[in-house]
Structures are given as C-alpha cells and as structure tokens.
C-alpha cells in the first residue's frame, strides 16, 4: 500500500507539460484582441460624459463655469449701460441751459418718457429758465439770446 504522500508526489511530478500550437496562439490572441477592442469601444461609447456632467463632476470646472457666468453677466450689463430712464434723468440733470433742454435729442427722450405732456413739461421748464420775453421774439433769437 502506497502512503498518501507518495501518491501525491507521483501525481505531482507527472504533471503533463503541454505547449500550445502556433495556430491556437494566433486564433486565441486574435479573437481575444477583437473581444477586448469591442468591450473598450462599447464602454467608451456608454461613458462618454456630456458637458453638464463634466462640469458637475469636476470641482475645478464648477469654479471655472461660475467665473465664466459672472464675467458674462458683467460684460452684458456693461454693454447695455444704464437704463433709458437713468440716462434721461442724468441728461436732464446735466442739461441746465434752455438750448440744451430744447435739442431734438432731449425732446425725443422727453416724448418717450411722457408723450406730448413730456414735451410740454420740457418746454415749460426751458421757458421758466428764460424768464419773461417779448411776444414778437423769434424762436431762433429766443435761444440765441440765452447763451445756450
């Protein structure tokens, strides 16, 4: 009766030494490479991240996106400038002489703000600054005389 160890040794030392054929190597490697490429291609197609996903995933991208948005808003505001109303108010504050008040630009802005009433108010303001004048004076003389 052979002891257990002898049987184990008998089996162990007689391990078959086999080598694969070149045909098998070629077939297996070619098919394996194809399978590998297909898997990687499929995975890269599945996991192609969208732009919003890239932004949400990366902390740096989040900060950059926030900075870009702030810059864009600032640029937009800077280009738009102050509102029409603000501009008019500023213009009226600056336009102190009657000739400035009665320019086409000033009257157009007044019309936009208050229609015909706006123009009338503008004219009254100019006449108030000019003070009492003779009824025969022409419009040109009226404004030339005001050093406007």
């Amino acid at each position, binding site marked *: *009766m052979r002891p257990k160890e002898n049987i184990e040794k008998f089996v162990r030392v*007689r391990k078959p030494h*086999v080598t694969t054929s070149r045909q098998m*190597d070629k077939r297996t490697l070619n098919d*394996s*490479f194809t399978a590998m490429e297909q*898997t990687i291609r499929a995975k890269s197609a599945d996991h192609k991240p969208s732009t919003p996903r890239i932004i949400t995933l990366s902390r740096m991208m989040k900060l950059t996106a926030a900075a870009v948005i702030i810059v864009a808003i600032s640029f937009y505001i800077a280009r738009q400038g102050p509102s029409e109303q603000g501009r008019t108010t500023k213009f009226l504050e600056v336009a102190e002489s009657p000739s400035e008040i009665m320019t086409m630009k000033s009257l157009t802005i007044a019309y936009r703000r208050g229609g015909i009433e706006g123009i009338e108010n503008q004219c009254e303001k100019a006449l108030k600054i000019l003070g009492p004048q003779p009824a025969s004076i022409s419009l040109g003389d009226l404004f030339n005389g005001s050093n406007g």
Partner: protein
Amino acid sequence: MVEDKILVWKFNRGSKDALRRIYEKYKDDLLGLAITLLRDRSLAEDVVHDVFVSFAGTAGAFHLSGTLKGYLSTCVANSARDRNRLRSGRDAGSDVAEAAGSNSDGPMERAIGREESGQLNDLLARLPYEQREVIVLHLHHGMRFREIAKALDISINTVQSRYRYGLDKLRSILNSVVTK
C-alpha cells in the same frame, strides 16, 4: 503576484501587450489542465480559447481578488466541466498521451515525458470527473481546498472527501498495476 497585478492593471487600461503576456504566461498550464480534465486536445484548446476570449471581454472592469493563475484555472475547470457534460457518453482520450507529450524537449525526453504523463492521464481517466478535477487543481495547479471549494461552488468538506477518495482509488489502481 506583483507582476500579475501590474499586468491586470495594464490590461484594464486596454493594453494588448499585457493581454498577450498573460496568455503567454499561462497558456501551457491551462491547456495541460484542460487536457487532463477532458482527455481531448482539440476540445481542450477550444476551452482555453473561450476562456481567454471571455477574459479579454472583461477589459476595463476586471477585478482580481485572488491569484490570476487561480482565476484562469477556475475558468478552465468550469468550462471543461460544461464541455464534459455536453459530450457525456462520448468516449474521448485517445490522443491524451500524444497531446501531453508534445513539448519542446528532445526526442528522448519527449518520449519519457509522453510515457509518464500518458500513464498518469490513463490512471486519472479511471477516476470520476469530480475527483479528477479536485486532484488536478490541487496537485498540478497549487490551488488550496478552500479556493477549489469557492471556485466550484461546493463545500470544503466535499472537496476534501473527493480528493481523499480520488487518491485512495488511484492508490488501489496503482497497487493492482504493480501486482500484475
């Protein structure tokens, strides 16, 4: 072990060279295992081929928990068992000795090797498939009983009893051969 980890890391990043090196490293061992289990070289080649193709299909998501050799040996053993079930009833194995002896040694060594491995394969062929599987995985491929149990999805006690019964049967076969 470390080399295998590096190879797997590269393989997961789509390195064909890593896959080729893994194949070159284990192909002969795995083919030997498949031949011992199936006793049919062409069937064994198909098993190894299928195992490597499906392994290649895991690129990018392969996670190695034990040894790479153990993992591949398990795959070959499982695939061989499926093939064995499919061809049940058909007697194969006429080319076992020839297949096992086809190595790159000289003619004399090849003849001795063929005779010895052929003798062992003839003996193992007399064992039930389950006992042969456990003996080969443990003695030829260095897998522990625990690993074999996990790979075959059976209890460690079953593995140990299959191993013990297999060795007892081999012993009695050898004794009968010696006394003749």
